[in-house]
């Protein structure tokens, strides 16, 4: 009997040389006359260990990593096909503390199954939520999602069930479900992992949404920087359709749900939901004024559910196991789990799915193992480029939407970027303004012009003699951007800027009292 070896096909594994490792294993096995069966699985999300090679043994799946193609001959020498010891041995995969300490609900299959295998998906709990949905009234499905407390995982944390209820309550000849997969924020990859690693979960979530609200057409808007995700989703949609999970008659329900991928084209602001709708309609991605809400007048003017990838991907387990199961995780109004993404200057970067309520310190040290450079961690940006920099004094605050909002920060999508003590926070603040200037859609003045004036003002804080006045100007400008911008692009760019100014005044050449007084 041949031995099964798993090597991930996730982009992060490919970028670390997974294909070369597969070639090397194949060649070495042929040379030694050994029968092996190499399978490509999704990634476990421990990216410092990629490529993570797993061998199926009697004790379970044994892991080795990070494996370079040069390591392959010595792995064979060590008998890794029977779980033999090697300097790269990590033991039984499920017992690696980084994984064992997680609460994987949405990411339960990640790294275990083969992304496009319908059999693997079904064997690991897939389609149960959709099967239940088919037998239920749409209103009951919406109620289940409402009861779960699921909030938008893309960053804004708006209750998903309320959007669904609004769309369900409309009468229209055509309704849509749109999945926002324009994951442009630095420090995030959970959407990419989902689409590359467990695409049927997203398809199932979208089909449930479609049946619940009466939408027959769905779109997944995926960024052009994610070619592997686009390919995987397209193939998965075709396979799901030919097996009756999508199409004119979803699981024999007599109801239709069709799904299509739309490829974005590199505009960051298209992650804003109305700009995304414009883009799908074939226009420049310019933000729309609200109201009307997209739930009432969205894509092509029709009622539209818009949710992020992880929001929709969380729905199957909620439907399969029930709202109360999901709601038991988390704290306060932040129910369920969030796939935190620990990135940047961190030793053990990767995906950590845990219930809301753990702290940044736990993520940085218990999971992350401290900085990659070995230097002390200075600042941590939570929630993407529009999220605040969180200083050490706040690392013990529980990761909960409300607790973070109370200190002027955001949990957002759970993307976490770590900077060590070589980071210059004035430079990062300037970069936030510069990025806003580069990516602003240009519709509203505070964002379009404020971002450029912001860059100039930060430069002047560094060089001018009247620093106090410049700081005052910057705060005034940020106030205008926060309160006067149409969307989060201009409205939240001040979060990283002001948090950098407030917590790290020395980097701006300021005394703490000058930074505060102005």
């Amino acid at each position, binding site marked *: 009997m041949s031995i099964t070896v798993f090597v991930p096909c996730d*982009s*992060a594994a*490919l*970028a*670390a040389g997974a294909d070369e490792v597969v070639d090397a294993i194949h060649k070495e096995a042929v040379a030694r006359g050994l029968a092996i069966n190499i399978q490509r699985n999704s990634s476990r999300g421990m*990216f*410092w260990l*990629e490529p993570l090679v797993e061998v199926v043994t009697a004790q379970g799946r044994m892991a080795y990593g990070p494996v370079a193609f040069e390591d392959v001959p010595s792995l064979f020498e060590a008998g890794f096909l029977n779980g033999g010891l090697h300097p790269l041995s990590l033991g039984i995969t499920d017992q690696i503390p980084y994984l064992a300490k997680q609460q994987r609900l949405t990411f339960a299959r990640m790294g275990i199954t083969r992304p496009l295998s319908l059999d693997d998906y079904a064997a690991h709990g897939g389609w149960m939520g959709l099967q239940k949905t088919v037998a239920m009234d749409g209103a009951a499905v919406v109620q289940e999602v409402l009861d779960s407390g699921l909030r938008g995982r893309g960053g804004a944390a708006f209750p998903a069930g309320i959007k669904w209820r609004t769309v369900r309550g409309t009468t229209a000849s055509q309704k849509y479900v749109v999945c926002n997969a324009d*994951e*442009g*924020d*630095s*420090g*995030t*990859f959970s959407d*990419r992992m989902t689409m590359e690693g467990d695409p049927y979960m997203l398809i199932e979530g979208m089909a449930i949404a479609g049946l619940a609200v009466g939408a027959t057409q769905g779109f997944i808007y995926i960024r*052009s*920087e*994610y*070619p592997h995700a686009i390919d995987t989703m397209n193939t998965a949609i075709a396979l799901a359709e030919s097996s009756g999970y999508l199409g004119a008659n979803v699981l024999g329900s007599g109801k239709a749900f069709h799904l299509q991928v*739309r*490829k*974005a*084209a*590199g*505009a*960051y602001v298209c992650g804003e939901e109305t700009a995304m709708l414009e*883009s*799908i*309609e*074939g*226009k*420049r*991605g310019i933000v729309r004024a609200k109201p009307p809400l997209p739930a009432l007048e969205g894509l*092509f003017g029709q009622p539209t559910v818009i949710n992020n990838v992880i929001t929709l991907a969380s729905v199957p387990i909620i439907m399969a196991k029930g709202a109360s199961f999901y709601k038991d995780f988390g704290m306060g109004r932040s129910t369920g789990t969030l796939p935190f*993404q*620990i*990135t*940047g*200057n*961190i030793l053990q*970067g*990767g*995906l950590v799915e845990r219930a809301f309520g753990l702290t940044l310190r736990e993520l940085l040290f218990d999971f992350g193992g401290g900085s*990659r*450079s070995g230097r002390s961690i200075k600042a941590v*940006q939570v929630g993407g*480029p529009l999220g605040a920099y969180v200083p050490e004094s706040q690392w013990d605050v529980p990761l909960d939407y409300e607790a973070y909002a109370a200190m002027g920060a955001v949990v957002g999508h759970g*993307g976490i*970027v*770590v*900077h*060590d003590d070589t*980071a210059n926070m004035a430079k*990062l603040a300037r*970069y936030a303004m510069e*990025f806003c200037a580069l*990516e602003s859609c240009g519709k509203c003045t505070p964002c379009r012009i404020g971002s450029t004036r912001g860059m100039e003002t930060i430069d002047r804080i560094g060089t001018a003699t009247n620093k106090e006045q410049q700081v005052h100007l910057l705060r005034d400008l940020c106030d205008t951007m926060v309160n006067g911008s149409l969307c989060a692009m201009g409205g939240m760019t001040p979060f990283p800027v002001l948090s950098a100014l407030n917590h790290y005044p020395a980097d701006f050449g300021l005394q703490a009292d000058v930074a505060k007084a102005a």
Partner: protein
Amino acid sequence: MNSTQASPEQALIDQLVQQHAGEPGALLPLLHAIQDKLGFIPASSVASIAQGLNLSRAEVHGVITYYHFFRSTAPGKHVIQVCRAEACQSCGSEELWDLAEKLLGCKGHETSTNGMYSLEPVYCLGLCASSPAVQIDDKLHARVSEAKLTRLVKSLESAV
């Protein structure tokens, strides 16, 4: 050029326009299809796209120039994208960017004079836990040190 004899390029564009004409929100999928085939979207194609989709030329031009991904000129033989977003900055991507400019002999958004390389900034390849990240043509590279970038560029040179 004789207007009754379209160039092969124009014939291809016309064919793609026809394929996409009935699709709701057809413009982006059409532009992607053209760029996939030709590597860029020729300025000469704007009129036929506009006519085929019943849009104004200004609307088509506006969309092509709004999105960073669409090119109006042919790229170099190899396209090198260096991620400059925060997670990559935290692990040295700015130094890597400077080195890329030196190694490739061109600035960002430019093509080297020998036509070999185009250097593009990219704001996130989704490899933030293994930064800094670089994409060379279709291939992703994680944890790219200065030595690794130098080696990768050298291997492009020797592949010629």
